[in-house]
């Protein structure tokens, strides 16, 4: 329980269904923070909600695991000019790693979280689906859940819209009913930001911006923080260019970021090399939808298998902006993003974190 409204209501709904429920908050970040799931005020909110619900509340100190499995890789990714998603690392190693492993030791059959997504079962297979509230859907950050995890994870608020979640909370008079959603990375403070957090841990060096033709377009601070697809903050307003320019690649050893047009950024094919399947691997030729960022629009495509079940290629129907290394590509059954999509069409199939620039093929406008 993070101390937010979603996990508060998740606990309340589990109780309502008659389960024996105990609340737990993971203490993850030991350093300064002004938002997110780690501050003392948020732990207090979680505890007060548990008191209101009449259940026990425990705090688990996972700060050293969090430092090792989330913060250090986050910093290391920046050192390699990747754009990491620490929430995915946290879900993999902490929420659905350390925490899920601890639960049975303490005698619990399952863990429930306040994610907007759903777990269903058809015959013998567990399925991870988008949440009912498509705008709030968080299935993207849960792609690492395989069959073993899905069997022991409950997502009770996935059937509700955010508005309904808040209504349940206010009907129960929970103190978190009106609490704003947390948006940012929990260990990065607003006033310092990403640059100061990373800059305190690794040296940030400037680099050159070059065009796709090799022309020098000026300097950029902190090349380690430059992201593929980035348009703002490059200082290119000083250079008169006919159209908007985007970062299309970062070359750390040569200390350059290549800048091009939107067309230069587009790719038609995604090469996948370590897919984490949520259910059984797809057969080659299957129609899919892919989502390339946490709230990105689902894009239609076709899955072409590779030499191993975890490798393959997605050919997109229409070109899309290339994925920054470190971000996740998540594959869904087709039609998953449709409003009111039926149950066959909202299943998350798998995902992976893109590690290197080389996994994105066809640096131009491949269809």
């Amino acid at each position, binding site marked *: 329980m993070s101390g937010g409204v979603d996990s508060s209501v998740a606990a309340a709904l589990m109780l309502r269904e008659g389960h024996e429920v105990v609340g737990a*908050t993971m*203490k993850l970040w030991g350093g300064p923070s002004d938002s997110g799931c780690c501050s*003392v005020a948020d*732990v207090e909110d979680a*505890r007060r909600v548990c008191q209101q619900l009449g259940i*026990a509340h*425990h*705090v*688990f*100190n996972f*700060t050293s695991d969090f430092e090792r499995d989330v913060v250090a890789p986050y910093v290391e990714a920046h050192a390699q000019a990747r754009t990491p998603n620490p929430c995915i690392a946290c879900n993999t190693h902490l929420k659905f790693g350390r925490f899920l492993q*601890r639960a049975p*030791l*303490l*005698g619990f059959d399952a863990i429930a979280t306040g994610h907007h997504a759903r777990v269903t079962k058809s015959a013998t297979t567990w399925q991870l689906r988008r949440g009912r509230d498509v705008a709030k859907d968080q299935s993207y950050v849960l792609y690492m859940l395989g069959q073993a995890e899905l069997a022991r994870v409950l997502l009770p608020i996935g059937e509700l819209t955010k508005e309904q979640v808040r209504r349940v909370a206010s009907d129960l008079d929970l103190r978190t009913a009106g609490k704003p959603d947390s948006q940012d990375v929990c260990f990065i403070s607003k006033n310092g930001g990403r640059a100061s957090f990373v800059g305190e841990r690794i040296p940030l060096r400037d680099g050159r911006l070059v065009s796709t033709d090799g022309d020098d377009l000026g300097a950029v601070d902190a090349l380690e923080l430059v992201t593929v697809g980035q348009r703002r903050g490059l200082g290119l307003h000083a250079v008169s260019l006919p159209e908007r320019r985007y970062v299309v690649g970062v070359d750390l050893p040569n200390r350059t970021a290549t800048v091009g047009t939107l067309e230069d950024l587009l790719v038609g094919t995604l090469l996948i090399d370590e897919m984490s399947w949520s259910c059984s691997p797809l057969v080659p030729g299957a129609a899919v939808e892919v989502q390339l960022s946490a709230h990105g629009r689902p894009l239609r495509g076709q899955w072409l298998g590779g030499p191993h079940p975890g490798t393959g290629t997605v050919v997109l129907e229409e070109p899309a902006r290339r994925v920054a290394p470190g971000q996740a590509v998540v594959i869904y059954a087709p039609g998953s993003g449709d409003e009111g999509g039926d149950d066959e069409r909202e299943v998350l199939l798998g995902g992976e974190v893109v590690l290197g620039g080389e996994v994105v093929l066809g640096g131009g406008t491949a269809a």
Partner: protein
Amino acid sequence: MLAYLDHASTTPLCPEARIAMEPWLSGSFGNPSGSHAVARAARQAIDEARDKVAAVLGTTPGDLVFTSGGTEAANLAVLGRAAVAAGPIVVSAIEHHAVLHAAQRAERLFGSPVRVVEVGNDGVVDLKALGAALDRTVSIVSVQLVNNEVGTVQPLSEVARLVRRRAPGAVLHTDAVQAPPWLDVARLAEGADIVSISAHKFGGPQGVGALAFRRPVALEPLIYGGPQERERRAGTHNVAGIVGMAAALEAADDQRVEACDRARRLRDRLRAGLLASIPAAHETAPGQEKLPGHCHLVIDGVESESLLVLLDGYGVAASAGSACASGAMEPSHVLVAMGYRADVALGALRLTLGHSTSEADVELALRAVPAAVARLGGSVMPAMAVTG
């Protein structure tokens, strides 16, 4: 069924304290600083309480400052002394955070460097290291009478001798918060200049404590306002709390010998039983003189955070190290100072007995702890691996 085995954290109010407090929670009231009859009655209650506390602590009634608890008393000692006397602050590495954090604050406020004295793996302050930390410039030395986590009794008279010889200008403070139900504080703390106690550790109420002066020591107050406590601690007295503390301290002192015998017998059985049934369990500082109610173990390969949750479910209230602001467990600074690796220190289990502990409490713990350890994957002797 609940076995409360966390008496070092807080112990229930004893009947003597409850009876003494009762009038001050119902009919009687009054601000002891006033001049009318109602105030005089409250003043008399405070004065009588002061006599009792001073007698047990081996000081004179005027040399006692009532505080809101042990933490305030320790803060007053360290910060109050550092404010009036420049010079290094010497503390043992296993002091309570009330002393350690106050010393760090004094360093920031007054620039008095903090010298932290090592302890051995026996949980006892290293006298050689203490000697090396002392010199004529030292303003205050703080060494606890008993460690609150592992329960080891510190050699305070040797500490006092060293301080007098090497740092004659220094004030010696001892945090005796864990001592009163078990030890003769007046005798053991004889060499100390100032002594902190806290009522709820010996059957008194929470929120009240005292700093006793065995020799005159000038301290800058922490709290300013009225002239209470001879202008050493402002604020209207907590009459019921002070009266309850005095009654509890007197009762604890009267019953000390029997209480020790009883607790030691139960604790020895608990400790021997757990060590026999859990091969991965080790006693910390074995063979050292410890409080009779203290049973402190480290269990290899078991995380106390999980162990405490399971024990809670089995009805055993226990503790491990210290908790941070969120309530999460932190590796104990005491165990780390004793040379335990941080991951091993996360397997600590502290069971502390008190005046209300029964045979049945010990029986329950003897079943529950091995069951919990087995559940967490720790090895236990087969006969004991039965879930309660």
